[in-house]
């Protein structure tokens, strides 16, 4: 069953590109069929529904969808934990 992941940042031009690529690699490695929707934070709402939202910027709103910060993909700190929680949502 194909999973849809929204990857968002402020301008959808830099950090979300990195995070989106990491999510694609993680899903490929774990045999998860995924569709990535890379958007600006302001475009999340209009791109629902989704199975997961990964953001590299602060998002306060609750979209009723699991939301995980993709910050570790940028800073390099805590990547394993982030990947584990992404897999938990997508394989859960």
């Amino acid at each position: 069953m194909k999973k849809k992941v929204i990857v968002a940042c402020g301008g959808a031009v830099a950090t979300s590109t990195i995070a989106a690529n990491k999510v694609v690699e993680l899903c490929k490695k774990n045999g998860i069929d995924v569709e990535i929707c890379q958007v600006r934070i302001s475009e999340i709402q209009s791109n629902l529904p989704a199975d997961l939202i990964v953001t590299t910027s602060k998002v306060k709103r609750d979209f009723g969808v699991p939301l995980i910060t993709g910050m570790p993909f940028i800073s390099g700190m805590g990547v394993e934990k982030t990947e584990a929680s992404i897999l938990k949502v997508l394989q859960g």
Partner: protein
Amino acid sequence: MIWETLKPALIFPGAEAASYEEVFQQVGGALTKAGYTKETYVEALIEREREYPTGLDVEGWGVAIPHTPVEHVNSETVIAIAIFKDPVEFVQMGTDDETVGVRIVFMLAIAGKPGEHGAHLDELQRIIAIIQDTALLQNLLNAQSADEIIKLIEEKEKTL
């Protein structure tokens, strides 16, 4: 490779600034003066940083990767680098108020069509590899010239 595109005139070892706004006026101003970015670039950097901060605490090293939407950049993607003697306060990416003292700034002037996502992946991955290498960050802080900074990045990229 990023190092090949780096321009010595856009690399500032030993820079000084009291605030991130000043960093953007200095470094962003240089990008605009050199014709790589539009007149709106510096203002857009300041505005965007307030809403979407780009400070990073990489194992105690303060780094920032300020950038704007593509609408403020001309046709060529360029990177300006500034190394600050004293830390400049940035808010950390993904937070509202957690700050970090930044001494290394990679200012990204990313060109492209509005709404086009996922471009420049290779360049962005190289930048991420650079800012996550704390030994390299240390060397960048000690570099005395633009050429030395370019050399350090060249050596790093050859390992990628």
